[in-house]
């Protein structure tokens, strides 16, 4: 990884590592159920133990997302969510101190202007981008902009990635490498893919210093399992689902979101015997945060 530029995301992962645990990375799409609630939800997740936040930029053609996130981003777009709203959300969530990345398909960034987007994201306090449909081979413009503005470049690896591509992706990434646990799209699954552990090991062998695992992680038990071998655990659909309420009770939704986040935060600590999150208040003063 390129380490000449200090990455806040990498620092947060290293801080978790120093506590003997994996980092908890949460995904929430901006604009679902509305922009302000999505910002409140991300802040609530940070309060409940999330270390790193991924804010999703809603896109009309989310080819790598399963039904839960598809429906949420479509609702966000139908409600009029704009790219500018995402940058506002980044500004507010980053103010919590948690590294805040934007997870986005490439076209909205391409259309905004890659350099202009990088400049505005950096100005908003954003940590970088996760790009599910942009491979390093096609990312020259984004890599140059990210390096210029000191942003994280989180690229993905998959169980089908060759060793050569793992090296390429590890070398191009900054912050962490996103290991897709399974061949498939986002969404809660009964179990996390069996190939995830081997993929994390192979990605480390290819030079990645920090590897986080996403796709299919939905429970504290999954988080505990993944935290046994990965530097970070990424959860999306399961959290988005807590916000799907037909009664529109935002307080209840945020309470559910925080409940699941605490469960996941316990999971990332349980694997290697780190203090449980309820002890965080006491542990915080001696932690490396």
């Amino acid at each position, binding site marked *: 990884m390129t380490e000449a530029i200090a990455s806040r995301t990498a620092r947060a992962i290293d801080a978790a590592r120093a506590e003997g645990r994996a980092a908890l990375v949460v995904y929430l799409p901006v604009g679902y159920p509305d922009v302000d609630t999505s910002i409140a939800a991300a802040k609530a997740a940070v309060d409940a133990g999330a270390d790193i936040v991924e804010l999703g930029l809603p896109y*009309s*053609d989310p080819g790598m997302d399963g039904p839960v996130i598809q429906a949420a981003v479509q609702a966000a777009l139908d409600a009029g969510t704009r*790219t500018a709203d995402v940058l506002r959300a980044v500004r507010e969530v980053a103010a919590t101190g948690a590294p805040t990345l934007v997870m986005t398909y490439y076209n*909205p960034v391409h259309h905004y202007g890659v350099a202009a987007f990088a400049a505005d994201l950096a100005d908003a306090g954003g940590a970088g981008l996760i790009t599910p*449909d942009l491979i390093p081979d096609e990312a020259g413009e984004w890599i140059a902009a990210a390096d210029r503005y000191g942003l994280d470049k989180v690229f*993905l690896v998959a169980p089908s990635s060759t060793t050569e591509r793992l090296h390429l992706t590890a070398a191009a990434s900054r912050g962490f490498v996103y290991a*897709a646990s399974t*061949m498939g799209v986002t969404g809660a699954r009964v179990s996390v893919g069996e190939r995830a552990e081997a993929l994390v090991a192979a990605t480390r062998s290819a030079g990645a210093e920090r590897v986080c695992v996403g796709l299919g992680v939905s429970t504290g038990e999954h988080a505990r399992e993944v935290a046994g071998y990965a530097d970070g655990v990424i959860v999306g659909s399961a959290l988005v689902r807590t916000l799907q309420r037909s009664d529109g009770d935002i307080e209840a939704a945020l309470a559910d979101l925080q409940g699941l986040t605490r469960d996941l935060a316990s999971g990332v600590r349980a694997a290697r015997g780190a203090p449980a999150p309820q002890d965080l208040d006491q542990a915080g003063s001696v932690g490396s945060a």
Partner: protein
Amino acid sequence: MTTRGRRDEGDAGDTRDEARRSEAAVDSETTVAMSANNRALRDALGPYFGEFGGRFVPEALIAALDDLTAAWEKARTDPEFTDRLAALHRDYTGRPSPITEVPRFAAHAGGVRVLLKREDLNHTGSHKINNVLGQALLTQLVGKRRVIAETGAGQHGVATATAAALFGLECTIYMGAEDTRRQALNVARMRLLGAEVVPVETGSQTLKDAINEAFRDWVANVETTNYVFGTVAGPHPFPTLVRDLQKIIGEEARGQVLERIGRLPDVAIACVGGGSNAMGLFHAFLDDPVRLIGCEAAGDGVETGRHAATITAGAPGVLHGARSYLLQDADGQTIESHSISAGLDYPGVGPEHSWLSSIGRAEYRPVSDAEAMDAFRLLCRTEGIIPAIESAHALAGALRLGNEIVGDAPAGTDPAETVLLVSLSGRGDKDVATAASWFDLVDENDLIEKGTS
């Protein structure tokens, strides 16, 4: 490459200022493009066509795309593969498809000569079969037993289901739920052929969403499944692969026109949605002094915003794995396209077309629903050929172009010196209900009952 200056054979000399101007522009720009890479335009192999193309897909698909690229590189020059494909074209599809001169139709095009390349006469009724037979053979070659495909109008879905039946492959077709209602008979056809048809309920429930869903299936099942992409769009190698499998259209037509009239046509015209029949027609002529015109679906009119005229009214962007022209809003969100023709109702276009447009080698013109339907009826009544509504866009383009050329020609020029070659990419059986409704030929209620019964 030795005949860049003028059309080489049988040219009438001093004619048609506008055509000459545009031809001169084409020549100078293609010369620049060719000198840049010192290759003929026909040799463009991807993954990039100028600044277009590429692979904007999840990493999970890269290994499969690499495998497919390697398999195609090997197969395209392997006599065992090419012989098998040629035999299928001949014995199964019925190739070569003929060219038909249509003088009664051409009388409405200023009196120029119009030749149709009859892809409508292929087995399954359109050019789509050319591509799927090649990709089904390739699927066998890479050792996979299942194919998936997207479909809009249903033509590519029917063709894929046909090839899957022929090769004994498992087959799943993704089709927008909206399109399954508009094209219920094609859904029945695919099911008769043994395919599973999955209506896609997400997004706009049309072709673009069917492609998204097919990609999701492919990511999850890539080890057993080949994605038989239907057009010259998508990530590399699909634009190159599908073009290579469709270029038989232009290669046959070029020889047939030379044989028929002793020279090349002045213009080659085809409709463009994703652009596979157009790329198939154009490819053989890329290095010839032949004007190339792609007709995009202008729906209610480009000015209304309800259209599918991607190159005319879009901007470069990334959708479905490639950088190309795209209909998108101020935030880069895909705009839903509109066209009476389901096969052209797509907000993107193949990257090679974007490139040919950017270097001035091909022109892309909008044709509205109304113009296309007028041309549809005219061909029915003057020549006894019911075209696909997609192909009717090319026919409308030919009518307008013929009249332009004749109108701009000096007095005394014989209009019949100009020859237009038009790709009749498909037949219109599937469109009879749409046409009957458009022209108010039957009671609407009868039509609905028949469509759903």
